[in-house]
Every structure is written in C-alpha cells, then in structure tokens.
C-alpha cells in the first residue's frame, strides 16, 4: 500500500467503516436477534455507513462452518440455523409423573392382597367390571404379571404382583402388606362392619395369605 494511501486513510478514520472483524460481529448479532432472515441491503442499512455486509457474511459463514450453528441463505436473505445433524437435540423429553387412577390402584390392591387373583375375583371384590386397559396398564408397568391358571372350570388366568411392585412399595414380600386389622388401627377403615361381612373377608384373607401367597413365593 502506498504511503499517500495510508495518510489518506488516516485522515478519513473518523468516517471510516469499522474493521471487518467488527462488521462480522455486527452481522452475527443482527442475524442472531432478528426474527426473520435479513437481506444484505437491510443489514447495510442498519450498520454504520460504508460497511460491506456481503463480505462480512462470507467471513461469518466460514467461521461457523462445522459448528453447531450455520449461516444459511434463504432466497436472497440470510439467517442462522442450527446444524441439521443436531436436529435431534431440538426435542425435549418430559417425564410426567401421574398418580395411578383409582380403578388401577384398587385393582392392584386386590391382586396384592388376594393373589393369585382372577379377573372374575377382582370384579367380585370391586363390585364393578375391570377394564382391559386397567389390567394392561398394570402389566405394562410391570407391577403385575400372569400367574398360574386356576384349576377351576374355564382355567382362568390369574394375576400376581411382581418383584418390581414389591420394590416400588418397599415391601420384602406381599405378605408384608398390612392386614385389615392394621388398616383399621391406622384409621384407614373407619366404619365397623356388620360382624358377618367383616370376618368373612378377614378369614378369606388369612386363608389366601397362607395358601395363595405362599404358592407364589415357592416358585
């Protein structure tokens, strides 16, 4: 560069365009903050007088090569976009914890207390029919599984609770589940039933606990 040129440049400093590195910063900031792609003309209208936005764009584009973000041209305008290979990062996995439905909890409780329990037994105890979905959900959660078929007419399938059920509820085995008496003393059963209904249930429980449940833990 000639000496005269340099002098001229120095004289013009006040009115000179910012250095290219600075222009690149400007383009970078504007592209980043803009809500839509921006044309070179618009970039230059925003930048100080004398800037070469096209040149700054070329440099910026080069700088972002191979990075997580790219400078892309859309029609005659420019924008910044995340690298296409990282698109999979643009999804957010949210795990929502939801309480089990009342029907599912009751069904699960019946299986836990009466296992092995057939669907008919569950329905008899709940007093309503058990939807396919409820059983499927519990199976899917791996809190119940199929037990042995019952040796009664029709050989119905039975359900039993799984080790992961025990794990979730912090039980060593299903026999650790509090009995009706304990439920009552914990205030969970408030009304004293007519003598018949109550003791029948308890007897059944007791019987189940010795026969049904020990069966489960034998195999």
């Amino acid at each position, binding site marked *: 560069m000639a000496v005269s040129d340099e002098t001229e440049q120095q004289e013009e400093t006040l009115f000179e365009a910012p250095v290219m590195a600075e222009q690149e910063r400007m383009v970078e900031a504007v592209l980043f903050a803009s809500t839509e792609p921006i044309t070179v003309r618009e970039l230059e209208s925003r930048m100080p007088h004398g800037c070469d936005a096209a040149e700054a764009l070329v440099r910026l584009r080069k700088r972002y090569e191979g990075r997580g973000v790219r400078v892309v041209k859309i029609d005659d305008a420019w924008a910044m976009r995340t690298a296409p290979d990282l698109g999979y990062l*643009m999804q*957010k996995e949210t795990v929502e914890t939801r*309480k089990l439905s009342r029907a599912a*909890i009751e069904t699960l409780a019946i299986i836990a207390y009466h296992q092995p329990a057939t669907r008919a037994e569950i329905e008899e105890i709940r007093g309503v029919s058990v939807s396919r979905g409820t059983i499927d959900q519990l199976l899917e959660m791996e809190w119940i599984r199929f037990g042995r078929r019952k040796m009664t007419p029709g050989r119905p399938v039975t359900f039993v609770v799984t080790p992961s059920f025990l794990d979730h509820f912090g039980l060593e085995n299903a026999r650790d589940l509090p009995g009706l008496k304990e439920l009552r003393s914990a205030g969970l059963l408030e*009304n004293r039933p007519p003598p018949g209904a109550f*003791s029948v249930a308890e007897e059944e429980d007791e019987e189940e606990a010795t026969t049904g449940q020990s069966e489960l833990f034998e195999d």
Partner: protein
Amino acid sequence: MAEDEFTEEKLSVSDRLAAEALIVDVDGFEGPLDALLMLSRTQKVDLRKISVLDLARQYLAFVDRAKQLRLELAADYLVMAAWLAFLKSRLLLPPDPADEGPSGEELAAHLAFQLERLQAMRDAAARLMARDRLGRDFFARGQTEVVARVRSVKYTATLLDLMQGYARIRTRDEFRPFVMDRNNVFTMEQALDRMRGLIGYAADWTEISSYLPEGWEMDPVRRRSATAATFAASLELVKEGHLEIRQSEVFAPIELRKRT
C-alpha cells in the same frame, strides 16, 4: 430555649427558601422521608455528616409554610413534624437521667441512617436501571426453533394409596344394605321356628349346640350367629314355659330339655 430561638433566626432565610422550594412540588414527594431527603441536600454535606437538628428545623419550617399557604399536607407529614419537634427538643435539652427512652442522639442517628439508606437504595435503583438491559441493549435469539416435546408419562402410587384403595373397597362392602349379609345371619325367628319343631323330642338334657341348624356348625361366622339366635330362642321358650335350661358352672355347656 433562647439558644433555639437564636439559631432558628440564623437559619430562617435558607430554611424559608428551602421550604418554598419544597412547597412547589409537594405533590411530587413520596412521603415525609423523601421530603427530608430532599431538604438534607440543601445542607450540601455528606449524608453521614448531616445535622439532624438543622434538618428538623428545615422540615418544621416547611410544614409551617405549607400551613400558611393553606396547603393540605397528608397526615404522615404532620406526624413526622410532631416527631421532629420532639426530636428537636430532645437534642436541645440536657438529657433527663430518669428517662429510660432512647436519647436524642440515638434517634437522630437512626433518622440519619434511614435517610442514608433511602438514598443508597435510590442510587442502587438508578444504577440498576442504567445497566445494559435485555431487549434494549442486548437481545435474545429472535427466531427460536420449535422444541418438540416428547412427553412420557410415568405412573406412580404410594403404599398408602394402595392401602387406602384396598380399605376403600372393604369399607364399601360394609356399607352394603344389611339384608345383603343375611345369608350368614340366623335370626331369632328362624331359631324359634326350628326349636318349636324340635322341642317335642327333647326329653333328656341335651347340649344347646346340638340344636344348631345344619350347615351352620362349621363356618365360625354362621356358627356364631346361629348360636346366638338359638340361645335367644331357647330363653324365649323357657319364658313361655315350654323348655328348661341349665348350666352347671360358668362356661360349662348349656343344656336344654322339654318341660314336663
């Protein structure tokens, strides 16, 4: 008080001026503390070195002037005036050894602290607002990319839920109409009918348990109900004079026989 009068005279010109200046924008003040802070600036010293006594006089002059001009001052300005008048007298009079309350100096120091703290907060607020700010000096990404939400639901329940669920089913059972459970209940009427039929054959003493209806002896629930009904029916029959009843000792078997 003579000294008080004297200093009051001495300050009066600047006080009046300050008071006039304040009155101009009395509506612009955010309460008496703000007015005091403004007045304290006329002393042109560091807030830490402020003369609270002078400040009290300035404020009282401001309130006097407002009264002369028949300006409505809010009640809290007048409360502050009363308090400053009290403070002023405390600062001027020698301390009363019998008085247990805080000294004038302590009260003055606290007021100075309040003013300094308010000023400090105003300065801090100004500095805060002067910072580079989002959306004005620096910017967030203009064109956000849509983040797809992949929602997975995890179901959970506690042991308490489980127990309550089970208890709920059981409790629901207990609310069934009583008649539903009658297949396990042997009524006294049934027992009476039965006993009337059988009693003719009871010539010898026989244990009451042998009168229990068939099918009610094994199941403890049914047995309990049948036993109670049969016993009640027996007593009824004794009362009617058809039956005799005896028990040799406590908890011994109860025996029946036809009354001859």
